[in-house]
C-alpha cells in the first residue's frame, strides 16, 4: 500500500501576513524530514524566517521554486508520510472552519489587491478572465482597463458628454436656508421665493419665514417667538410681515454700518435731454411699457458699473471678488412699510426700453409678493431712488456684501449754465456710497463721471 502523502504549505507567520516568498529550500526530494525540522526559508513583509515542518516524512516533489511569492496556505511541496499513523490528521486536510481570503483558490489569474478588485467591479470586469502583467502575475490597473476597454468600446461613446465645467467665477449665490426654517415654511405654506434671508451669507432663518407667512398656520406646540402678553390682540399678517421686513433691513443695515468703512461722493446731472427723449419714446410705446424716469438712472448705473468693474462685486474673506455681470439691486418699498431689494440680472446688456420694462415688472411683483427666490439675491450694485418722495439728496447705506450704492434724488428745475448761457434745466443729485476697503475715491469718481456722461447722451442709453 503506497505511503500516504501530505502537502507542506506556506505557513501563516504573523497576524497581518497574506502571502510569502519562498527564498530557499533546505531539503531536496528524497530527504528524510523529522517533526519540527527546519525545511525552508521564507520572506515576509517583515523578515526572513526559517520554516519548520510539523510532520515527519520523506520529501517527494518540490512544487514552488525559490523566488516565487504565494499566498498563505498554498502547497509548497509534497512529502510521503512516515511514522505512527495515530499522528493527528495532516493539517491541510482539516477543513478550514472559516474560509479566509488567502485560502480561496483563484483560477489562473494572479493575485489582485482590493483597489484592483474595486476598479474591476466599477468597470464590470471579471478578474478571473484577466491576465496579470504585474510582478508575480499580479493584475495591474492597466490590465483591468484594457479588459474593460476591449469588452465594450461602445459603452465609452454612450457615456453622457461631461457637463461643461461651472464657470470659474462663483455662480450667483443661491439662498441657504436653516433646516427648521425650511420645515416651518412647508408647515405654514410659505413660498420660499418670497423670503429675504437675514442669516449669515443671506441664509433664510425662521424669523424670515415667519415674516413671510401670510396666514400663520397653527404652529406645533412650540410657543410663538414674538409671543405678546395676552392683552395685545394678535397683529394681522401684513403688519407682521412689515415687522419682519423691518427686522431684516435693520440687521442688514446694522451689519453694514458696523463692518463697511463708507466713503461718499456727490454730483449733479443735467437730465433735461434724457427726459425729453423718453417723453418722445413714451408717445409711441404702449402705456404698460412707458419708460419711467427712474429707469434712466438704472441704465446709466449699469453702463458705469460695467466700465468701472472695481465697484461691481462682493467683499468676502477680506478681499474683493469682482462679478462677471452687473446685477442691479432695486430697493422697493412695500405698501404698509418695509423694504425688499430684488435684483435685475445682467442689466448691462439691456437697452433702456427693455430695462425699464424689466424694472416695472420686478418692482410690481415685489410689491405683491410674487418674486422668485433667485431674484432676491445676487445683486452686485444697488441703486436707491428717493426722488419720488421729494428727497433731493440721499447718501445710502451699502448692502453687504456689495461694495457700492448709487443714490438718486428728485429731479428738480434749476438755473443752469449751458454753453455760457443761463437757462432752466432739469437736474438730479446723484451720490455714490462706496466701501473704502474695496476702492478709493478716484475709482468712485470715475463711476459717477461715466454715469453722468451717459445720461447726457440719451440716444445711446
Amino acid at each position: 500500500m503506497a505511503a500516504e502523502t501530505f502537502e507542506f504549505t506556506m505557513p501563516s507567520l504573523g497576524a497581518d501576513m497574506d502571502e510569502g516568498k519562498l527564498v530557499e529550500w533546505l531539503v531536496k526530494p528524497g530527504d528524510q524530514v523529522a517533526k519540527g525540522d527546519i525545511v525552508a526559508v521564507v520572506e515576509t513583509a517583515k523578515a526572513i524566517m526559517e520554516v519548520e515542518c510539523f510532520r515527519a516524512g520523506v520529501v517527494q516533489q518540490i512544487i514552488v521554486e525559490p523566488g516565487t511569492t504565494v499566498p498563505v496556505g498554498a502547497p509548497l511541496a509534497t512529502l510521503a508520510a512516515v511514522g505512527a499513523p495515530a499522528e493527528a490528521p495532516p493539517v491541510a486536510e482539516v477543513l478550514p472552519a472559516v474560509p479566509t481570503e488567502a485560502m480561496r483558490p483563484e483560477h489562473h489569474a494572479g493575485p489582485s489587491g482590493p483597489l484592483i478588485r474595486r476598479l474591476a467591479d466599477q468597470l464590470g470586469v471579471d478578474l478571473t478572465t484577466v491576465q496579470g502583467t504585474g510582478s508575480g502575475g499580479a493584475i495591474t490597473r492597466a490590465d483591468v482597463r484594457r479588459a474593460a476597454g476591449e469588452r465594450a468600446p461602445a459603452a465609452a461613446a454612450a457615456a453622457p458628454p461631461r457637463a461643461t465645467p461651472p464657470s470659474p467665477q462663483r455662480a450667483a449665490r443661491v439662498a441657504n436656508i436653516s433646516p427648521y426654517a425650511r420645515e416651518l415654511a412647508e408647515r405654514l405654506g410659505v413660498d420660499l421665493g418670497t423670503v429675504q434671508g437675514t442669516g449669515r451669507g443671506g441664509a433664510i432663518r425662521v424669523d424670515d419665514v415667519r415674516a413671510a407667512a401670510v396666514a400663520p398656520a397653527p404652529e406645533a406646540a412650540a410657543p410663538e417667538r414674538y409671543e405678546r402678553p395676552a392683552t395685545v390682540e394678535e397683529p394681522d399678517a401684513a403688519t407682521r410681515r412689515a415687522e419682519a421686513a423691518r427686522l431684516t433691513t435693520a440687521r442688514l443695515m446694522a451689519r453694514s454700518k458696523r463692518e463697511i468703512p463708507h466713503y461718499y461722493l456727490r454730483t449733479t446731472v443735467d437730465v433735461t435731454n434724457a427726459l425729453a427723449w423718453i417723453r418722445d419714446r413714451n408717445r409711441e410705446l404702449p402705456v404698460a411699457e412707458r419708460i419711467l424716469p427712474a429707469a434712466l438712472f438704472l441704465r446709466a448705473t449699469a453702463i458705469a458699473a460695467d466700465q468701472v468693474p472695481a465697484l461691481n462685486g462682493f467683499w468676502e474673506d477680506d478681499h474683493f471678488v469682482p462679478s462677471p455681470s452687473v446685477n442691479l439691486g432695486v430697493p422697493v418699498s412695500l405698501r404698509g412699510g418695509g423694504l425688499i431689494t430684488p435684483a435685475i440680472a445682467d442689466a448691462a446688456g439691456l437697452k433702456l426700453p427693455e430695462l425699464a420694462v424689466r424694472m416695472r415688472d420686478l418692482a410690481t411683483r415685489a410689491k405683491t409678493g410674487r418674486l422668485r427666490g433667485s431674484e432676491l439675491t445676487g445683486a452686485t450694485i444697488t441703486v436707491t431712488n428717493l426722488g419720488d418722495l421729494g428727497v433731493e439728496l440721499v447718501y445710502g447705506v451699502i448692502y453687504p456684501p456689495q461694495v457700492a450704492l448709487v443714490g438718486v434724488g428728485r429731479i428738480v428745475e434749476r438755473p443752469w449754465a449751458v454753453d455760457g448761457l443761463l437757462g432752466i434745466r432739469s437736474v438730479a443729485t446723484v451720490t455714490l456710497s462706496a466701501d473704502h476697503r474695496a476702492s478709493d475715491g478716484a475709482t468712485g469718481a470715475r463711476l459717477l463721471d461715466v454715469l453722468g456722461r451717459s445720461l447726457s447722451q440719451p440716444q445711446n442709453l
Partner: protein
Amino acid sequence: MSAKHRQELLRQMLRIRRFEERCAELYSATKIRGFLHLYVGEEAVATGVIGALRPDEPIVSTYREHGHALARGVPMDAVMAEMYGRSTGCSRGRGGSMHLFDADRHFYGGNAIVGGGLPLAVGLGLADAMRGSHRVTTCFFGDGAVAEGEFHESVNLATLWQLPVLFACENNHYAMGTALARSHAQTDLALRAASYGLPAWPVDGMDVLAVEDSAQRAVEIIRAGGGPVFLELRTYRFRAHSMYDPDRYRDKAEVEQWRQRDPVELLVTRMRSDGELDDGDLEALDREVAEELVRAVEAAEAGPLEPVEDLTRFVYSERS
C-alpha cells in the same frame, strides 16, 4: 514526594508542552490568529508554582499564560476554543490567547500590558488582608516587567502593607528581543527585589521539583502572615517570543545549551533513574495527552461563534 505526585507533575508539563506545539501548527494554518506567545521550555514554573497553591487562591498572569491556565485546571477545550475565538472559550471567545479568564477558578486572566497585572494582584491581596484572610494571590510576570514603573510601585505597596502576594518572576532572560543584560543595570533580579524589604531568592526554573519546593516555602511564609515574597524563577523559552518573531537576537548555541535542561526531559530522566517511570508509562501518558488534545481541537472547531447581536453585552453589567 511520592512517585504518584511526580507522575502528576510530568502529566501537567506534558499537557502544556503538547498543547503549545499544537498551537504553533494551528497558527501556521491560520486557525489561531492575532498574537501567540508559547510557553515551551518554561513548563516547570507553572506546574511547580501553581502546584503549591490551593484551588481558591487567585492567580494573575501575563500574555504567555497557556501553561498557567492549564496548570490551574482551566479545561483544555475551553482554552483551545478561546484560541479559536469561539463562544465556548473560557472568555466567551472575546479574549483570545492573551486574555484567558476563569472566575470560578480564580484565574484573573492574562494581561497584554507588560506589568499591567501587578497592581491587580496587590489589590486582590489587599481585599483578602482587609478581611483578615492570608489567602495567597500569585502574580506571574516576566523579567521585562521588572523594568516597568508598575513593578516598583506594586512591590513597594504590597510590602509596605504586608499583603499576601507571591511575586513569581519568570526570568526567561529575554524581554522580547532584548537580552536581560541590555535592559537591567542589576541583572540579579532577586537581589534587586530584596531591596524592597521582602524575602526574595532565585530558583532553578527548569527543575520542577526545585520550583515546587521553593513555592511551597514562599506560600507558607505568606499564609503565616509574613507578607509578600518574591521568587526569581530562572528559565528559558525554546521558541521565539511570538509566532511573528524571527528570533535572530539569540544565537543557536545558547538555545541548544538550555535545551539540554529541558524541564520535561529532566523529570523523565530523574523518575527513570528512581525507577518510577518506564517506557510503557510514558507512552500511556503521551497517548492520554494526545487524545485530550484531539478532543480539544475538535471541540474548538465545532464551537459556535458568539452572535454579533451580543457585541455590546457586558460593556456594562446587565441589570438583573
